[in-house]
């Protein structure tokens, strides 16, 4: 009887551990995703801003003479 209880207890600990590991890893990946998404929006905004501006040394290329 005692052995059966120990086995059940062990299995329960195992299940809880697995659930915890899965939960933590999922949560981390969601956080990573959110962070990536935020970076993407900011970098995309930065790119769009660039396209609306001119570089101060911008020039027209008509080709070299040599």
């Amino acid at each position: 009887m005692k052995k059966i209880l120990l086995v059940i207890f062990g299995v329960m600990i195992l299940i809880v551990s697995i659930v915890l590991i899965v939960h933590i890893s999922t949560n981390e990946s969601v956080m990573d995703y959110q962070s990536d998404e935020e970076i993407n929006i900011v970098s995309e905004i930065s790119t769009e801003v660039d396209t609306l501006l001119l570089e101060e040394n911008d020039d027209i290329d008509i080709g070299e003479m040599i």
Partner: protein
Amino acid sequence: MKKILNIIIVIAILGSLLPLTYADDVMNSSNDVEIDAETQQQIEIMNNGFGAEIRLLQLENAIIKNINMGNEIISILNEYDMNVTNFELILAEFELVKQELQSADHNSSDAVNVFVDLKHDAVNLSKEFRQTLRALFNTSMLDQIQNQTRNMTNNQDGNLSQHIQYKIRHYNKNQFQKIYQLLGENWSLLIHRYQNGTMTQSQLKQNITESIKQAGKEKQFNFLALLKQEKIRYKIHAQYNGQNSGIGFQQRQENRLKGRLMRAENLSDNPLQTELMNRLRLKINATETPGNDDNQGGQGNGNQGSGDSKNDGSSNGHGGNNGHGGPQNPGGGGQ
């Protein structure tokens, strides 16, 4: 029976429209051209007089640089007792292009056409000069000439370059104001500092990035959508202008050449006047020839195309003999 008759009538009507479509294509191919991607991008800012002024000034600056470089090369060639007439003729036409550019009105509705047309001419004249030079010298000699001209060309056109920089700063100031309006914020003090030169463009951009990082998700998405909308507006405008510039391109080219010929007639004090006029007449004949795609060049000045293989990315179609330009791709041609 009635149904069959109806179907036959519809087919007949559709069939009669086909030749019209074909005729339209033929007309387009004879006189109209497509603008290359680089020029298309450059005309994006020409949707107002301010942007148009910047592009025309930048083109003028590029032409002046090449004329100065050409003159320097000619003076080096003179040291070797070489015949420089062909080079001088190219520069003489370059001067006429420069004058046309300087007399252009950036507020005019055809400012985009002027830019596209004269850029096309400038690219082709530079290419013609380069090809003529490369046909005469080997690579080591060309490198030597390049080294000799380097010091001279470093400090050219300082005033015009500074003027352009000032105009670009002013243009960017307006753009920053627009961007901050889209962001729903008022940063007039920072924009003022940017215009004064006490704040750089990258610092102001960094400020926008920091501001957007602190904003909520919804505001970030909205701002991005507004920026994209603005960009699309520019692109549509440029597309429209680009298509319009492509229409009647060859006819405009012929008119430009005729205008240059008329102005060359007044250059009586120029020893090259006769040769310059002959050169322009040949070009006009080439553009007038029916079915001529203007890619053959053929100015008959004896300089066979050198292939121009050294770092030559021009997208303008050139044939063998000093070709003066393929209209298939006006304006463009990064080197």
